[in-house]
């Protein structure tokens, strides 16, 4: 009940937007290839449900695999940066500086390296999502309360114990901040990867539909992509709450 009360304003607002969309397109007679009617978009969703489902699953799979690799690489890099002051002085600024490279320009290289199969899509997702995870986790390690570390050291904690019982729990909140950001943008990475060359996935689907000026199908695909992004973000948030729920927010 409380959840419903919390979410009621946003639900009503979405309903209002949907109503405005449907009414506006009818009232001003907007051509379907500019903005299709919402009812047409819904019809496109229903008519091609099976096909959209297949494409949706592939894009989701690419995004999830890319995220998983980013979590592994990102956390390992963060550990490296935290454990070596040389790495903090060299690798960390390099990772930050790498963000000035336009990822979109870099993405075709991934196609050259990994081909038109799923590898290039995953690598583009990694390009998008590695940074927030690595940097947030490294910052989390660094922000660990030094006095707690010293106290554990005075109780005889060794390096491994310090890492497991002090560093990791300290860095978890920052890690999840990074993960949520990464989850939200991972779908964008997967879509871009598909645009650059692929056979299926929602990115390919929307691009083909746009080429055929099928506005309702484009919007149906975009709607699903944004829902996927929201779902991934919410999932990351739920894991976060599960792990950190009892701590003070």
């Amino acid at each position: 009940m409380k959840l419903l009360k919390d979410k009621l304003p946003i639900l009503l607002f979405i309903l209002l937007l949907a109503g405005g969309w449907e009414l506006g397109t009818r009232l001003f007679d907007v051509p379907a290839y500019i903005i299709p009617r919402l009812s047409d978009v819904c019809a496109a969703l229903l008519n091609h449900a099976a096909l959209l489902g297949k494409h949706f699953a592939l894009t989701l799979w690419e995004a999830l695999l890319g995220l998983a690799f980013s979590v592994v690489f990102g956390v390992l890099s963060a550990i490296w940066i935290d454990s070596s002051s040389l790495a903090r002085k060299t690798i960390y600024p390099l990772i930050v500086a790498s963000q000035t490279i336009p990822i979109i320009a870099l993405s075709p290289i991934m196609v050259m390296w990994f081909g038109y199969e799923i590898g290039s899509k995953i690598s583009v997702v990694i390009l998008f999502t590695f940074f927030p995870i690595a940097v947030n986790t490294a910052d989390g390690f660094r922000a660990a309360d030094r006095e707690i570390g010293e106290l554990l050291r005075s109780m005889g904690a060794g390096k491994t114990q310090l890492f497991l019982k002090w560093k990791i729990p300290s860095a978890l909140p920052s890690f999840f901040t990074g993960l949520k950001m990464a989850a939200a943008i991972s779908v964008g990475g997967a879509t871009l990867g598909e645009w650059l060359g692929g056979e299926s996935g929602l990115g390919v689907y929307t691009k083909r539909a746009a080429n055929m000026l099928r506005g309702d199908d484009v919007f149906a695909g975009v709607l699903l992509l944004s829902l996927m992004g929201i779902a991934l973000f919410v999932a990351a948030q739920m894991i976060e709450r599960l792990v950190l729920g009892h701590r003070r927010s």
Partner: protein
Amino acid sequence: MAGVNRQQVTVERAREESLPASAGLTVQGLTYRFEGEEPLFDGLDLEVLKGQFVSIVAASGMGKTTLFRLLAGLLQPESGTITAAGAVPGQRSTIGYMPQRDCLMPWRTVQDNAAIGLELAGVPKREARRRVLEMLPELGLAGTEAKYPHELSGGMRQRVSFLRSLLAGGELMLLDEPFSALDAMTRISMQQWLLEVWEVHRKTILFITHDIDEALLLSDQVLVAASRPITQLESLVVDLPRPRTYETTLDERFAYLKRRLLGQLGRITSHAEGGPA
């Protein structure tokens, strides 16, 4: 540290049997300086008898916390030996260090915070948690085992921190101004609380404080840092009868001891004014 290599370091934690049975902590010839600075301690000797409650009072900036960090093994002295009762060479320190801030881990419950020392010592988690649970009532923490630190008041958090040090350490506890951040009323109740807990466990306690009343109320002996660098500590024996309560501070004898202590401190403050801050 550049200074460490210049002189031979002879820190070792001797076997218990090599110490007089009555010694809780023995410090001999302790010398320490931060790199490129004047020494904080120069040939300091210090002995605390087993089961005694000893306070150190000194002006700020005298290096009290540094002394504790040396005793806790977090810093290596330039020269000198530190021997804690019950310590075995090559094994982890058996000193229960309680820092000024409670330093409780926000991701652990009261029970798991207090158990960390046992856990690090290799006690199985279940056993460690059981031992904490047993101790909670006598420390006034009954029913808090599943609570997280942010759900506790400042005084309660310090109790958990104390319990953690009590369980982590052997015979010797180092308490670094544990009540300094508490409000006056809570501080009084925590002092009473510490008196009661100490009566039961009779650990050797070395206690740092700025608060003269607190030092006198709690201690068997008050040590005053008399010079900078600290080469020796002036001692004042507090011969007030135990068990004590906060009422003890109203005693005539208490007032007499306080006057003497103020006198000792007064000489130091006037002495310190000429020196570096």
